[in-house]
């Protein structure tokens, strides 16, 4: 499963967001992701992909930013 798929699955499970709405340019806030849900989403990522997000992470604003961040962290993890 890639990062975008996981975001789609999470938003569908928690918010009932249709997968086709979860596109890179979509704003997370517009899909109903508030600060609490962002924490949940990051927790899910850490769990599923075995990565650790920095506490000083700049919060992504869009689906594209979120999935790019996750992809980068996963690449770094597999390279280390």
């Amino acid at each position: 499963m890639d990062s975008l798929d996981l975001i789609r699955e999470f938003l569908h499970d928690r918010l009932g967001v249709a997968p086709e709405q979860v596109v890179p340019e979509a704003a997370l806030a517009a899909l109903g992701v508030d600060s609490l849900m962002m924490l949940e989403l990051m927790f899910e990522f850490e769990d599923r992909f075995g990565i650790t997000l920095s506490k000083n992470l700049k919060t992504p604003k869009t689906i594209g930013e979120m999935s790019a961040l996750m992809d980068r962290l996963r690449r770094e993890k597999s390279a280390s």
Partner: protein
Amino acid sequence: MSQRRVAVTGLGMVSPYGAGPADFFARLLAGESAVRMLRTDDAPRPLNLPFVTCPAFDPETTLGRPLAGTMDRFAQLAMAAAFDAWADAGFERAAADGEDRDTWGVAWGTALGGTLAYEKGYRELWQKGRERISPLSVVLGMNNAANAHISIQLALGGVSMSHTVACASSAIAIGEAFRRVRSGEAPVMLTGGSDAPQAYGVVRAWEALRVMAGGDETTAASACRPFHADRNGLVLGEGGAALVLEDWERAVARGARIHGEIVGYASTCDHSHLVRPEITGQVRALRATLADAGLTPTDIDYVNAHGTATVEGDSTEAAALREVFGERASNLAVSATKSMHGHQLGAAGAIEAIITLLALRDGAIPPTAHLDAVDPACAGLDHVTAARRDQPLRAALSNSFAFGGSNAVLAFRTVR
């Protein structure tokens, strides 16, 4: 400041019988027990005891997945009951044009808060060996989650309080809400209580107190026997109940249906022992409530007793009622409806406030079920052992007496 009359214009409930307050009350009048055996797959020793659940309540269907997902079950029960009471009062969830809700508030009772969420976290940490738990754990577990969600969903900008006083939690929440409306501080208050005590650790803790009734498949329905000579303890249950309290003149002006009037409230503390109740503390609460309401013992036609079916609790309450009501006590209709709906801890006071209001409104008294042999220590009252209908009731009390020695009594009157 002159005191205002306080109308009850909305009632809502998550009931073990599956429907709202009217159905719940009809089941009680029919003497129908909601107590069943609760069985779990918990290790090392599964739960297997008489309990009351609300099996028809599906939070995701009722509240929607996004909202339900941010709540522990106690808050889900609260939210569902609050939505129902709000609709029953004729209010929309969003403020209407020109409707200023900045002083409308919430007072909510819960004895336990989100113990299911906490327990889930403990299992993750200690059973599964994980190093961290859900980032929602704090906001799921906190005791004020229920009132916070209610304030958010109903756009209430006034006070938002949680009251945690064990078994008197929601009676005290209702009483404190009543005072705010009566004083003019808030024109409308949403109040009530909820609890979901089926967490494994919570049930085991209650069992350790040796106050829980035992039973099996054939005896569970009659396991809770308040005032009975052979009573042997309480039956825990989950539930949520909500009331809308409203400035009487405001309610009349908007043509609201008024279920009844709340006229008095008092709370006292025994200040003597954590779990052993005292007659004197309960007597002071009963008398202070009557005084607060401007009523005398002869005005009261029904008392919904706290009556949990513990040996000491029931006899103490009966003695307190005899002392306050004197010669009238033997003609004072008393029932303990926990015999059928169990003890919902922080929700019990609100559930029983609704029962008391409906008894007055409908002129019908639900019974203490299974009471075929009154304990002599609980005698001297008119125990209602079968439903009484067509009763011209004028005023009634609802008692809630808590571990910790806190006592709360609410007084209601029929609409006039």
